[in-house]
């Protein structure tokens, strides 16, 4: 197991290098001059411009610039912005917000999606099942922008006007409560997909030969479903949830904008605009890292849930 983890981490290095190189190149190729952007409308003293360009290696060829960045990265130094602030300082707070948001969404997805899916599977063919399937279709086909503004209006504004102040409309001042509504909006389509996946998975599992065996053993239905079917039916959900963590974090831009959450989505937007290479590349690097780690955790969980899979 330990050797497996190390091997996976080593395998992650080229992925990380490729991803940073790619994003570095894209930002490099963007039109406009970052130093000029920093100054805004004013014209800077050419001497100062020269010093700044030297300090940030802007006069070096692309690959040399990238090399400077990379060596810094391995020392844990994500570089500074052109305004002189360490990128790590900027990212820390923003990532905290986005991680809170994504985690809230993931928990909602797992609990609601798996719950509804299991319920639908056990009632399949009945009215409740059809209703759940219909609801998932709606969730999948309505864009985040629409569900976001709608829920913000209904559950945030209107409810508050009615005297029930449950869901803050914007910002992160209310702790966990601030994340409930945006978390749900972010998880929306994922909840629907997970519901459908869970439903299919459990229904398929219930047709397996070992379920027939469990019934033939005279076990009560709740044990047949709750123990023999459930454990097997949950295995495919783990992959889906793991892969979705990355998607949720990367896809938080719109949700963060609607609910005005100061997360990496917003930061990414600003930094691309300001051509702040170090910030953009830093954020993407961390996202790639999260993705790789999430996949690794998924694979390890797999081995825990399914004894047929062993890593050496």
């Amino acid at each position, binding site marked *: 197991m330990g050797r497996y983890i190390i091997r996976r981490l080593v395998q992650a290095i080229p992925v990380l290098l490729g991803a940073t190189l790619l994003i570095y190149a894209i930002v490099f190729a963007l039109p406009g001059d970052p130093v000029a952007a920093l100054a805004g409308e004013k014209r800077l003293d050419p001497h100062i411009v020269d010093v700044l360009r030297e300090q940030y290696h802007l006069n070096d060829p692309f690959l040399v610039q990238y090399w400077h960045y990379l060596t810094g990265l391995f020392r844990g130094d994500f570089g500074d912005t052109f305004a002189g602030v360490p990128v790590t300082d900027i990212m820390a707070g923003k990532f905290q917000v986005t991680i809170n948001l994504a985690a809230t969404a993931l928990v909602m997805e797992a609990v609601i999606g798996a719950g509804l899916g299991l319920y639908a599977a056990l009632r399949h063919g009945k009215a409740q099942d059809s209703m759940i399937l219909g609801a998932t279709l709606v969730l999948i086909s309505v864009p985040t922008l629409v569900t976001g503004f709608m829920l913000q209006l209904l559950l945030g504004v209107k409810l508050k006007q009615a005297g029930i102040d449950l869901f803050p409309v914007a910002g992160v001042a209310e702790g966990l409560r601030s994340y409930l509504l945006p978390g749900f909006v972010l998880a929306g389509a994922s909840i629907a997909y997970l519901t459908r996946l869970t439903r299919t998975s459990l229904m398929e599992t219930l047709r397996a030969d070992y379920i*027939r065996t469990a*019934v*033939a*053993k*005279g076990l*009560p239905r709740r044990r047949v479903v709750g123990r023999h079917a459930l454990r097997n039916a949950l295995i495919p959900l783990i992959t889906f949830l793991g892969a979705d963590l990355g998607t949720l974090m990367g896809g938080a831009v719109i949700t963060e904008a609607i609910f005005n959450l100061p997360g990496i989505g917003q930061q990414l937007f600003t930094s691309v605009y300001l051509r702040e290479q170090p910030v953009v590349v830093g954020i993407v690097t961390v996202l790639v890292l999260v993705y790789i780690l999430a996949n690794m955790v998924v694979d390890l969980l797999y081995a825990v849930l399914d004894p047929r899979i062993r890593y050496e």
Partner: protein
Amino acid sequence: MKKTSTPVLPARGVAGNEPLLAVDNLHVEFATRQGAVKAVNGVSYALNPGETLAVLGESGSGKSVTAQAIMGILDMPPARIPRGEIRFKGTDLLRLPEDARSQIRGQRIAMIFQDALSALNPVFTVGSQIGEMFQVHRGTSRRDAHKKAIELMDRVRIPGARQRVNDYPHQFSGGMRQRIMIAMAIALDPEVLIADEPTTALDVTVQAQIMELLAELRRESDMGLILITHDLGVVADVADKIAVMYGGRIVENALVHDIYRAPAHPYAKGLLDSIPRVDQKGQELYAIKGMPPNLLDMPSGCSFHPRCPYRQDICVTEAPPLYEIGPTRNSACHYWREVLDGSHG
């Protein structure tokens, strides 16, 4: 005074005049888009304590569906049992309420399946799957159930039971997996064990060992064994009697030595002629020509008539009843006499 008497569960060990298990004119059909698939159309057979009944017939003849009806593990719907009785020591299981039925399932009538790999749950240890029988049905503690599992694995001759009790099904060979299925099935000393093609997925030497194990377990207890197979070769050594099925019906019931000496139904005769024999090496094997019947659209009269070398006009119009042709023998053929005589000659 009750208006309708609820059937009561028969006690263990008490033997009346009734057979241990009697299937009587059982019908099972499945609702499908194409219509009702009549999988079982009036099956009757009986089993006594300590007896082995072999159920023979080609694939699709209704052997497994009959067994699943006995176990009460058919999905209803789509399955439906419009007619028939399944009497366990005189009590019709089909009239028992589900909670009484579940007292029998797995505990007094147990079943093992063809493919032990898919029939065992891949994510639980074999020990926990065997021990579960004691935990759920007997309220045994986890630790004691674990011990019982080891004992049972010893009893079905799994080498190193103590070391292997915490292994998972995929870590065992095919033969060992089937032994684990058997251990699970005999855990609570069932009075009836149904083995549905227990050796079909195994290679020949392992097949013989599993058959030997089943025969031995049956000898040690007074258990009745229903052995479903399409391999007549294995039957002669272990079975006491045979029920031959065709198109969801019994076409012949007989003691093993009677049917081997002279079958009384053309289909049974065809099956017997298709067994490879040592004394006929090199000769071409006989194969029954034609296709199994379409259960959605059964042939008129005798359902075997499109394939039958003995067919006469009456066979096309009139279905033969299950003639009683001896004290322990039935045949569903108008011309059983001719078949019997032809077999002798």
